[in-house]
């Protein structure tokens, strides 16, 4: 995938399909440490040890319509291509955590992409989960939490087109600010 945010979208969709009611996306973008760390943690149904060992293999999938699943394998490859790694921790009935590490200045590292667009697409995919997105840089941190947004909206649907567009803009602006070191 051309941008890392596409991978994030893909992994979060797995969380939602695993009946997660809460998903946390954590991005740590550090020039100082030369790393880009991404964690996606959910409280979905979780996986057994055996399944964790198999999900990085493209020939394992829970899908019944075709026999290959490339979401996690492609993300793993993207990490390894830039001297990083992908790690999965999971417990049945508790949830799953996917942790990715990229060498930040590696020439093969894809750009992060638009997080505003990604978060908008995630929220728009359903309405029975909460999303907490944290973006941390060397100079500051930005947190977006759908529980807080819903409180602010006072009954207006978070999936309303106008609200979604506002969320996209709001996130893109704040990520830019936190990346520029203004927070």
């Amino acid at each position, binding site marked *: 995938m*051309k941008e890392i945010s*596409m991978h994030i979208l893909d992994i979060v969709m797995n969380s939602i399909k695993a009946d997660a009611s809460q998903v946390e996306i954590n991005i740590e973008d550090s020039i100082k440490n030369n790393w880009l760390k991404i964690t996606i943690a959910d409280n979905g149904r979780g996986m057994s040890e055996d399944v964790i060992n198999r999900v990085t293999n493209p*020939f394992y999938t829970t899908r019944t319509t075709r026999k*290959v699943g*490339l979401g996690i*394998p492609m993300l793993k490859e993207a990490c390894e291509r830039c001297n990083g790694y992908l790690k999965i921790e999971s417990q049945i009935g508790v949830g799953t955590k996917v942790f990715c590490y990229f060498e930040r200045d590696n020439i093969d590292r894809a750009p992060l992409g638009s997080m505003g667009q990604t978060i908008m697409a995630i929220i728009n995919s359903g309405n029975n989960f909460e999303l907490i997105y944290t973006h941390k840089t060397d100079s500051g941190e930005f947190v977006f939490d759908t529980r807080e947004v819903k409180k602010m909206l006072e009954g207006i649907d978070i999936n309303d087109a106008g609200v979604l567009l506002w969320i996209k803009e709001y996130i893109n602006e704040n990520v830019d600010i936190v990346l520029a070191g203004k927070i």
Partner: protein
Amino acid sequence: MNCLEFAEKLQLTPLCEKEKNIEIEGVYIGDLLSIVMSKAKKNYAWITIQTHINIVAIAELLELACIIVVENMEVDIDTLNKAKELKIPVFKTSESAYQMACRMSDLGIK
């Protein structure tokens, strides 16, 4: 032209059993798997520098004719084992993707 004929003509090194001998209907060149997945078509030969097992998954998914690994990239053993299991022909060459494409074009594969 089918896979084996052209592999022989171009002196490609076969890395896995030549059990599937499919007529090549086109060629796609690319290394970003998600893009290849959306652009390459059934019975296409795929030219790439990628060697990870994921390439076999793409070839299987799209029913590609064969995979041609260029620039003499070392192909992972897992990749070859899976390709053998699924009978997907994998070839290797020291040439670049561009040189390979030119030669395929000369052979009439457009």
